[in-house]
């Protein structure tokens, strides 16, 4: 099936290298630039099986897009923009598209390293740690966080991100902030551009995980690929880590909804013809785009604050099981966004880089990454699936030339949610995972099955392609021990 679909596009797809393919500018009417995919032939066959490539071609039609619409090896079909897509828009004549960021603005990943080796803990202690994490981290329902912010307190979080939590509530630390992409606060955040409804949705949700593919995972460093880079990041073999995957919750979802509607309404006025309504956009210098940028930045800051509160809960759980000392010495490796638009300078040009399901992966030469990591590049986290593994990568300078400094954000789905449900049951999956040494706590039986390991591409294969394409290099492989899902 997939081979046939790829074959049907064979006259359109050009092989640039064994890990880079291109659909030329003329392959679909209206394309302003080519659509380029970082994948090997095997991954490309899977990618061609859904509408990802068509969606990438649509992105290539947007005004002001430069060089190419890019797809990371984990690309899969989304709505409007594909998931795993990168689009850089000229900051003077391009557009901003809320759909190019997605509904979960600044969905991202934070990695914490515990000062404990998995060998030092009994299986009972590991289980207790998972139970404690599950008890302290609000997951399923929309609400449930203990910090219910509104008014000026919420405004400060929207404007300043985790720093507002540190000053207002003593949550987090300067070291954590330094080890967060953009130090957890995008410039230009405008709380006044966030609607009352978005604030009402998000205010009570700070410090909650959410559902879908969001999770919190206790892991063990299974293998080091680059011991020097691992040492620089503070990772050792067998060390325990906690990976937090969450975003801006209802606040970000509402910001996106609000501005997709606004931009769909004004796009014709700016002479923009949309191949897909969800690609709604407006010129960068338009009042609508400027307001969206202010609201998007505020939602991004809220997401970083959300993950900061979740990290605080993790430390509480560590303290309860392993003691206060272990909690104090639990370090934040980094926190990365994978649904965001940022103003960046590439090749002498200012560009609005939209990353939708893609991670910034700046190399050692970048001044945008913490000084402590400049010897090796920015940490990039690639969650796999709850039954396989996740990766820590390091960004490469070559990524700046090839992908506007971007890499993948996960393994990428290969099965639909319905197809996953056909293959197993929650009870069976729990049992399979427990046998594989993974303790699972999930608020939703259906959600658990939909995120089953077989629903995802092989993460080892995906990151190997990322490395071969020169986007990032492998540093460490993390094996899950316990998973908490919304």
């Amino acid at each position, binding site marked *: 099936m997939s081979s046939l679909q790829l074959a049907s596009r064979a006259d359109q797809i050009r092989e640039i290298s064994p890990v880079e393919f291109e659909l030329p500018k003329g392959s679909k009417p209206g394309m302003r630039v080519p659509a380029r995919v970082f994948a090997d032939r095997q991954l490309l066959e899977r990618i061609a099986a*859904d*509408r*990802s490539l068509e969606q990438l071609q649509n992105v290539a039609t947007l005004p002001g897009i430069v060089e190419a619409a890019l797809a990371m090896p984990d690309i*899969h*079909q*989304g*709505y*409007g923009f594909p*998931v795993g897509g990168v689009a850089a828009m000229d900051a003077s004549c391009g557009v901003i598209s809320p759909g190019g960021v*997605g*509904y*979960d603005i600044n969905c991202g990943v934070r990695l914490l390293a515990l000062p404990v080796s998995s060998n030092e803990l009994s299986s009972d202690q590991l289980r207790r740690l998972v139970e404690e994490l599950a008890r302290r981290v609000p997951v*399923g*329902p*929309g*609400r449930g966080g203990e910090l219910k912010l509104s008014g000026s307190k919420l405004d400060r979080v929207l404007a300043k991100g985790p720093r507002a939590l540190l000053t207002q509530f003593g949550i987090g630390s300067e070291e954590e902030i330094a080890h967060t992409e953009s130090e957890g606060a995008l410039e230009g955040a405008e709380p006044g551009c966030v609607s009352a*409804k978005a604030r*009402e*949705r998000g205010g009570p*949700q700070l410090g909650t995980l*959410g*559902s*879908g593919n969001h999770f919190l995972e206790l892991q063990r460093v299974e293998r080091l690929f680059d011991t020097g880079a691992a040492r620089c990041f503070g990772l050792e073999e067998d060390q325990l880590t906690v990976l937090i995957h969450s975003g801006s919750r*209802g606040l970000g*979802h*509402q910001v*996106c*909804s609000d501005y*997709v*509607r606004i931009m*769909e*309404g004004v796009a014709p006025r700016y002479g923009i013809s949309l191949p*897909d*309504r*969800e690609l*709604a956009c407006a010129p960068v210098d338009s009042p609508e785009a400027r307001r969206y940028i202010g609201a998007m930045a505020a939602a991004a800051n809220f997401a970083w604050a959300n993950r900061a509160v979740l990290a605080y809960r993790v430390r509480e759980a560590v303290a309860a099981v392993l003691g206060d000392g272990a909690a104090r010495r639990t370090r934040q490796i980094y926190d990365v966004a994978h649904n965001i638009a940022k103003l960046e300078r590439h090749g002498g040009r200012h560009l609005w880089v939209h990353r939708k399901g893609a991670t910034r992966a700046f190399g050692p030469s970048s001044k945008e990454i913490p000084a402590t990591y400049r010897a090796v590049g920015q940490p990039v986290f690639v969650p796999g699936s709850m039954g396989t593994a996740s990766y820590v990568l390091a960004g490469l300078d070559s990524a700046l030339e090839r992908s506007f400094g971007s890499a993948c954000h996960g393994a990428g*789905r*290969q*099965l*639909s*949610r*319905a*197809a996953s*449900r*056909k293959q197993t049951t929650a009870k069976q999956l729990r049992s399979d995972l427990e046998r594989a040494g993974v303790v699972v706590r999930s*608020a*939703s*039986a*259906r*959600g658990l099955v939909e995120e089953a390991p077989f629903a995802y591409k092989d993460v080892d294969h995906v990151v190997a392609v990322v490395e071969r394409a020169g986007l990032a290099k492998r540093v460490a492989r993390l094996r899950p021990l316990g998973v908490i899902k*919304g």
Partner: protein
Amino acid sequence: MLAVRKQGEMVAGEKKYGPRRPGHRFLDHTGELEVELEAPTAEGLFAEAAAAVGELLNDGERPGGERRSWTEICLEAPARDRLLVDFIEELVFLAEREGMVPASAEVSLQGTELKARVGLIDRPPVPLVKAATLHNLTYVEEPDRVLARVVLDV
């Protein structure tokens, strides 16, 4: 158990598909969730959308005859398709705000204005749905039935 259709199968104008009584089904989509709705009337279709959202937020199980509390929603949009998307988003918002599952709705439509009485079940909703999108949005009113398709971000 949810019925599933293959991605790409179209419903509009496809007379042989589906019963004329209200119904919904979830379609294959790699990353998200696509819901297909059908009813004899537009009001019935919007009510069916509430039933579909209720099922999703009730962890995939169709709510039964549980006791409900009722709340009202009033919406206006530029067109019926956008009204449907806005209605689904309003149900998601309601679920988050009230911490309950919106399981059914009595809907009245006047052009592109909607008034709905939404029945809520006192049960924590599974917050699966982030938003209703405009991607591949389909809304077709035929003489004897109304059809729609909406992609949900999950």
